[in-house]
């Protein structure tokens, strides 16, 4: 019989606020002239994120598994990741807000007169702001979803805007569109797997609830075979999102083709959302079956770490390098997943935050390095940048060293805590491989640092544009956080310790 559903709007509010902001954004598109849209959208987006974050702070201790009829679990873990996503999205929006990353007239052919007209009229594709907010809403929902339908919907909510935004780059449009196509096709492909996995998990347990799958006795019709099929297919959908080998191939191409602020946003926030979901699923639903998936996930983690770092060694494009770096980091984070203990959960949370800040910061810097034709991502052109722009170079070096896990940066504490958790779970192989692949990874981070600092600048070199105040704030916050979390990690470690709780 139909009973009124009860939704705890207070706990859903952060997501709803973001969705509301997005809707307002759509309305702004409709009702304001192209000149005025820009500032309004920026203010709106930033405001939405701030309000949502404020609300999130208010409800940070309200833990419940029934906020939305069992569809979401608002727990420490979820709230923490939501907050992280909001903060990073805020920084990313600051980068996005900088003028000229997006094609002014997306539908116009590259190089056409129409495009030229759009450029000269100064119009902007302000639709990215609502799209970003939609994506943020999806990302916030993804790690707290506790049934498979919500999970699937959240996945799509976060993915679709990203597919679109990937194709909006102002320069090198063909590449950008190609990236969008690749991202879309592969994304859709992987969500088909994801869905198929859901079907079989349902076949196994007769339920779509994450918790019930985990505790399902062998259901009358279900067979463990369904569980295995379901688990594998579902996982592959998620592994695609985090960019784990061999489901990573989209990452470099998309990272390179997408507008750089979007790449930053995507690299940081998607990873957090996807890992949030992964952690929730494996720490919750699949906890009891760990013996069947741990070996395979461990293997994936190892392959991801090793191949990611090896492949990055010979990259010549900074964005591709960072893409492979994100693949490597996915490997390390997977080590946190397979650790399967509280330390692993806390470590993963810390790692995601640290990684997120460094990533947004690094891509923020990429947006600054330009020549007459726009952003320059060819590493050889970056040579000797430190001479011209020491501060920017130092910040970049800081982010890279953090990626490399050099002490005194947040990346080191991340790596340390992840490895500690993995070690604690007895998974020493992953620690050893992790350490070795860190060494390889260090090579290419240091290669970039070396290029920046020690090579002579080429004559047709690049320059760093004077960053706008927003970009400056974004990069500044990222740099400060990267350093602060490296020097005094207790700030965050204590927080993740208390927040690393999962409700089922």
């Amino acid at each position: 019989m139909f009973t009124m559903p009860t939704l705890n709007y207070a706990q859903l509010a952060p997501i709803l606020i973001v969705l509301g902001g997005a809707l307002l954004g759509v309305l702004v598109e409709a009702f304001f002239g192209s000149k005025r849209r820009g500032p309004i959208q920026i203010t709106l987006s930033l405001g939405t994120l701030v309000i949502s974050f404020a609300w999130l702070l208010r409800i940070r201790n309200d833990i419940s598994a029934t906020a939305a009829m069992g569809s979401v679990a608002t727990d420490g873990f979820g709230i923490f990741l939501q907050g992280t996503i909001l903060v990073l999205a805020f920084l990313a929006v600051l980068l996005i807000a900088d003028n000229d990353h997006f094609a002014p007239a997306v539908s116009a052919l590259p190089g056409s007169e129409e495009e030229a007209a759009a450029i000269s009229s100064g119009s902007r594709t302000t639709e990215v702001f609502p799209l970003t907010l939609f994506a943020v809403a999806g990302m916030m929902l993804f790690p707290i979803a506790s049934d498979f339908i919500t999970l699937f919907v959240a996945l799509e909510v976060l993915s679709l805007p990203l597919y679109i935004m990937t194709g909006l780059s102002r320069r090198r449009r063909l590449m950008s569109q190609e990236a969008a196509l690749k991202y879309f096709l592969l994304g859709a492909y992987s969500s088909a797997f994801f869905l198929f996995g859901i079907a079989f998990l349902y076949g196994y347990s007769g339920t779509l609830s994450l918790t019930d799958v985990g505790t399902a006795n062998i259901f009358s019709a279900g067979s463990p075979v369904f569980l295995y099929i379901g688990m594998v297919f579902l996982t592959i959908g998620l592994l695609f999102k985090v960019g784990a080998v061999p489901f990573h191939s989209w990452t470099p191409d998309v990272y390179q083709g997408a507008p750089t602020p979007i790449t930053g946003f995507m690299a940081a926030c998607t990873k957090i959302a996807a890992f949030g979901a992964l952690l929730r699923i494996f720490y919750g639903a699949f906890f009891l079956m760990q013996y069947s998936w741990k070996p395979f996930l461990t293997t994936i983690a190892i392959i991801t770490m090793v191949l990611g770092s090896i492949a990055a060694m010979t990259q010549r494009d900074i964005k591709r390098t960072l893409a492979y770096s994100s693949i490597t980091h996915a490997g390390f984070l997977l080590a946190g997943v397979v650790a399967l203990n509280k330390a692993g959960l806390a470590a993963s949370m810390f790692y995601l935050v640290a990684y997120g800040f460094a990533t947004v910061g690094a891509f923020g810097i990429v947006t600054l390095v330009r020549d007459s034709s726009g952003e320059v991502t060819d590493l050889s052109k970056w040579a000797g940048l430190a001479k011209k722009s020491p501060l920017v170079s130092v910040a970049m070096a800081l982010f890279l060293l953090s990626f490399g896990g050099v002490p005194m940066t947040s990346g080191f504490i991340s790596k340390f805590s992840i490895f500690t958790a993995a070690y604690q779970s007895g998974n020493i192989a992953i620690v050893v491989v992790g350490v070795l692949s860190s060494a390889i990874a260090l090579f290419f981070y240091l290669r970039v640092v070396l290029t920046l600092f020690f090579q002579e600048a080429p004559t047709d070199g690049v320059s760093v544009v004077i960053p706008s105040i927003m970009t400056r704030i974004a990069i500044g916050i990222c740099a400060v956080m990267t350093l602060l979390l490296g020097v005094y990690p207790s700030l965050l470690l204590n927080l993740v310790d208390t927040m690393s709780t999962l409700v089922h």
Partner: protein
Amino acid sequence: MNILSFVTLFPLLGVVALAFMPKTNTHQIKIVALGISIITMLLSFVMALKYKSPASGFAYVTSHPWVSSFHINYALGIDGLALVLILLTTVLVPIVVLGGWNESEGGRWSVKTFYMLILVLETFMIGVFAATDVFLFYVIFEAMLVPVYFLIGGFGTGERAAAALKFLLYSLFGGLLMLAAVIGIYIISAEQAIGSFDVTALSHLTIDHATQNWLFLGFFIAFAIKAPLWPFHTWLPGAAKAATPGTSILLLGVLDKVGTYGMIRFCLTLFPDATKTFAPYIIVLSVISVIYGAFLAIGQKNLNSLIAFTSISHFGFITLGIFAYTSQGLTGATFYMVNHGFSTAALFLVGGWMISRRKSAAIEDFGGLQRITPVMAWLFFVSGLSALALPGLSSFVCEFLVLLGTFTRYPVAAIIGTLGIVLAALYILILVQRTLHGPLKSGNESMTDLNLREKIAIAPVIAALVILGFYPKPALHVINPSTTSVMAQMNVTDPHVLAGK
């Protein structure tokens, strides 16, 4: 804040001061850097004078929680071992600043950057010896690579970028292995009690033999790369070739000592059983280092890489002494670390002056300097004598102690190691003969002899070498209790006297 913390952090004050000075005022910047480093040195002297060997553990202990979720503390404390190395550091830094007065100019970056890096490095160098928390030690151990990386890459010569990268990669690779071991021992401590990184607490753990072996290797390889022990040494010659003399002095004189220091502080005391298992193999590596480094030194054509290879030989002696784990071997090795610091400093200082005057580091470009720049030639000769461990200079005392200590446990190794002293004579005298003796080679005519600043810079080094050679007691007096306590922690005693009463 206790005096140890104060000494450790004091150079950072200089960094802050320098940060606010205008870039162009290079002379003032140098003066400030020199002043800060001298005050640090004096502070460390005060600390040393008030130092009393603690019955057990460390003196000047201080501890504040740092990362409480992992029980990581900002914990400092020193024993004799650490004290002498800290003193070495604080003495060498002003000498480097004064001796390499002009080497900061003409780099990629400003003079200001150079001295800020040097002072940051000084804090790290003191801190790494003072840290009693394994995690803190590790963090500093790794972090100190960064300033050196920039010092080599930014102010060096020749293939500086590649050399800096190679140096950093090697060290970080080792560091990562060590990280795995650090985590491992933390987990073990968490299993046996509340997790801890305190070195004293960790030494009381009971660790099964296989685990000990792995953890030992994790630490050891990191230290062996840093030390550098054969066959992990190939980063060194390039780095020494590319770095400025000042950087080389800090690199070889102090930084690399962290490797050998770590072996004593961590490998020996935390994993005594594994030490006993691996000692014979490490002794073999050490002996190879001694002989190999000496032969390679003979074969070098570049002044800096020659000095680097002599150091590889000397580090072989140090590890020989350490892994013989006799009181003579350990004390000798520790004392060796100090003396090698001074003797390398002397060699690099004078070598650096020679190179900067000649604008070439190729040995064949020199010749007959004795006639034209007698003071410089003499100082180079004396530095060379300390490198070949001439009795009367402090390097003799330690080298002899090492060999003596090794002989009682590993006679064959000591006998082969002794060959090193003949080879040492060869490489030093060949070098001396080619650069200082013979007729004056063309290109050297316009060389000038040392100026007063340079003489003042090197005087303390030579004085230290001579005084400690004649009267090593103050150093040995400080080192001996630490040695005893290390051996007690390892639960070993010196081998028995074979014959006699």
